[in-house]
């Protein structure tokens, strides 16, 4: 560790509070040396993003304010610096990239123009020079056909390309510090891997220091020189990456590490029952294309002859990157969409062509858990109302439904008094438990969980996965688990089905598919999982 050198960025005892005075950061301190990568790790609400935004004076006005502490950049105090001075530093000496490449680029300005703006306001280059420099920046982030991309609008580009553009924009003036706030979280694993490689490459080329904010321990393991763990507005532990990940000193750090699911597939379970509860045969779904003057343009095939089956008490994982068609399959199973072709047999009955009325008796056999716990419960209805709605639709009287709801809440580990409360009074993990209870209230044979833990922090995610596993063992329900996260799939699933562009690429037991992938695409996916080389459970045990 090169301590003799003066740090590039020094944050001392930074305190930030909301406008109402609720503290968000309680005296946070960290520093970055020139050229190094510091990972700021923490779960949501830990204050890691706030700390980075405060550095550039970008805290949302009127909502958050700095209460105290110092931020020094290259020997210059930033807190208290004039707005003009901060403006001169931003984009020039210190650049930032953000989590959502979808929303971080202005949708109505061309890509070239947005990069050009940076040059425009920080340099005195003329238009031709700026254009040349912009094109050069685009080339450096390995974008193809840079002339076309220069004039393209963000919505024409893929998520990975957009993030490359964000990086090009950030690095075009060769800043000494790059703040990257969860830059790969919204990306598919393979893209994430490419972006991480790119950041590392450019960092080495330009000697940029990187403040990398992430919640993903795998990413940390892959890129960090040093790690700073944050929890509830405080720095819990910091140190060299190998040390923090390898020999964590704090319980919280260990807890975080322990929650990271292992990539190794779970031990095969004995098949309990031979009853096939869900049988999907050559399911296809074609979305109609936009209407032209006289005819429709050809549609998009989101699912192409997907077949699989599931026996009672087993878990099938459907994995794939965004756009692979896994959610379409889920919605077809639920008959939220009517499939274009193929059959969906739930406990033997084909529901793929039933009318709304004919569907009703079969609805309860298959239930769903949604991704976003904030939106899957009606905010205006109490937990009890949400839980008894389904059973009452099927003729169970209110009192009995309430008793059942009470029992289910206990089953998912929530206090009984939760019944009278409303969704906003619960945390995300708790809400996901309620959603599980709601699905179970219907006594289904199959539960489809569509990215059911993706929106949760790792520690909560671990608890919910554990709960699902436990419930399955107790109730014998079959689960279709849809996820983009191979670690999660490995931990939970008996069988795994890999999808790509609507087609099934590989389908087999978890051990086969994840342990010894045959298809190159599956191999690529496995290779791209961040931190795959690191055994987190070992570190957590230490």
């Amino acid at each position: 560790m090169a301590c003799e050198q003066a740090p590039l960025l020094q944050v001392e005892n930074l305190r930030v509070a909301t406008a109402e005075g609720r503290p968000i950061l309680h005296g946070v301190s960290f520093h970055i040396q020139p050229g190094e990568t510091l990972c700021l790790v923490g779960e949501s609400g830990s204050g890691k993003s706030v700390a980075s935004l405060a550095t550039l004076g970008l805290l949302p006005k009127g909502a958050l304010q700095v209460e105290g502490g110092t931020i020094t950049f290259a020997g210059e105090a930033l807190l208290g610096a004039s707005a003009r001075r901060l403006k001169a530093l931003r984009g020039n000496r210190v650049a930032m990239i953000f989590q959502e490449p979808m929303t971080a680029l202005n949708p109505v300005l061309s890509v070239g123009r947005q990069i050009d703006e940076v040059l425009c306001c920080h340099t005195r280059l003329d238009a031709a020079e700026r254009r040349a420099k912009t094109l050069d920046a685009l080339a450096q982030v390995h974008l193809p056909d840079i002339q076309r991309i220069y004039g393209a609008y963000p919505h024409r580009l893929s998520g990975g390309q957009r993030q490359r553009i964000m990086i090009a924009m950030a690095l075009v003036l060769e800043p000494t510090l790059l703040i990257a706030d969860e830059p790969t979280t919204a990306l598919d694993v393979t893209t994430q891997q490419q972006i991480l490689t790119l950041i590392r490459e450019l960092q080495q080329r330009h000697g940029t220091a990187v403040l990398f904010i992430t919640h993903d321990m795998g990413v940390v393991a892959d890129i960090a020189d040093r790690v700073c763990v944050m929890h509830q507005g405080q720095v819990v532990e910091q140190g060299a990456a190998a040390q923090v990940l390898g020999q964590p000193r704090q319980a919280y750090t260990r807890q975080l590490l322990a929650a990271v699911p292992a990539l190794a597939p779970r031990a095969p379970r004995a098949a309990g029952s031979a009853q096939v509860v869900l049988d999907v045969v050559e399911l296809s779904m074609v979305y109609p294309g936009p209407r032209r003057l006289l005819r429709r343009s050809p549609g998009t095939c989101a699912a192409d002859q997907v077949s699989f089956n599931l026996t009672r008490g087993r878990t099938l994982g459907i994995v794939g990157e965004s756009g692979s068609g896994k959610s379409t399959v889920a919605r077809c199973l639920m008959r939220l969409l009517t499939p274009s072709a193929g059959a969906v047999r739930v406990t033997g009955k084909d529901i793929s062509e039933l009318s709304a009325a004919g569907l009703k008796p079969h609805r309860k056999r298959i239930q769903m858990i949604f991704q976003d716990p904030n939106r899957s419960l009606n905010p205006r209805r109490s937990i009890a109302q949400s839980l008894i709605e389904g059973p009452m639709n099927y003729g169970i009287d209110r009192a009995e439904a309430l008793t059942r709801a009470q029992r289910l809440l206990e089953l998912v580990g929530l206090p009984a008094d939760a019944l009278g409360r409303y969704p906003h009074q619960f945390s995300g993990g708790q809400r996901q438990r309620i959603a599980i209870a709601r699905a179970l209230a219907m006594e289904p044979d199959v539960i489809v969980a569509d990215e059911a833990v993706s929106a949760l922090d790792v520690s909560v995610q671990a608890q919910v996965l554990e709960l699902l596993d436990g419930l399955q063992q107790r109730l014998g329900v079959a689960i279709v688990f849809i996820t983009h996260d191979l670690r999660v799939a490995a931990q939970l699933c008996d069988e795994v089905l890999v999808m790509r562009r609507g087609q099934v690429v590989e389908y087999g037991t978890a051990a086969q598919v994840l342990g010894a992938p045959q298809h190159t695409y599956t191999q690529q996916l496995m290779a791209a999982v961040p931190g795959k080389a690191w055994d987190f459970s070992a570190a957590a045990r230490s």
Partner: protein
Amino acid sequence: MSKPVSLGLPAPRRRWAKLPRPPLAVALAALVLLALIGMAVFAPWFTHHAPQALAPALRLKGPSAEFWLGTDAYGRDLYSRIVYGARVSLTVGLGVAVFSVAIGLPLGLLAGYFRTLDALLMRVMDGLMAVPGILLAIAIVSLSSAGLATVMVAIMLPEIPQVVRLVRSRVLSAREEPYVEAAVLMGTSTFKLLARHLMPNTLAPLIVQGTYICASAILTEAILSFLGAGIGTETPTWGNIIAEGRLYFQLKPGLVLWAGLALSLCIVSINLLGDAARDALDPRMKKR
């Protein structure tokens, strides 16, 4: 009650808890509106002239102890007319707001939920919107007699498509919400789905829209009076007081301005309350 084990999630919030204390303007607006409603309901207590009592010999007199704001062109007490005028104007405003929401809400729900109905219903609504509202109102008023009910119907008709559109757009976005889909999966009937899960989503913007409809209905009544298609002069409304007084604007501006002041105060208040309601009910406002 145990504190939820929050991992950084925002603290539970009560619906109104995040509201900053109502700014002075909003408090004032509520006060003004209450005063106007009180004035309308208890009009006889505030006046000592009947609003219709005419005395042509005393026409167009200036303010006096007997006639606080003077008399109009028929020698009627302007003050009494303005006080009683609050009755009709507020009835028109509230009535139009309530009825157009009551009619537009179910139509909007149906249009938003049933694709097949949507196309037909929205074409009809488009057609209704394509006819200039004032024209429609004049036509309807002359179709029937120019009574309170007719005027209200005439003002209401062009408002309904707006409500339908609003409700429809909310339903269209809400029907994609996972909790709505969850309800579908639990076999909830369409009626219950609309009533329990979709309708509540439309209420907040509807309240806001309702206040705007209320305000614009009062104004439209005034414009109809200006065009001679409003409520008859025997029933004082702010609209017809202003419309009848407009000839004297340069000679006796009070004939227009006092009623205009009451009208504007009322509408400013309603609008301010509408804005406050929007800020309070808008989920985006709470996010920050």
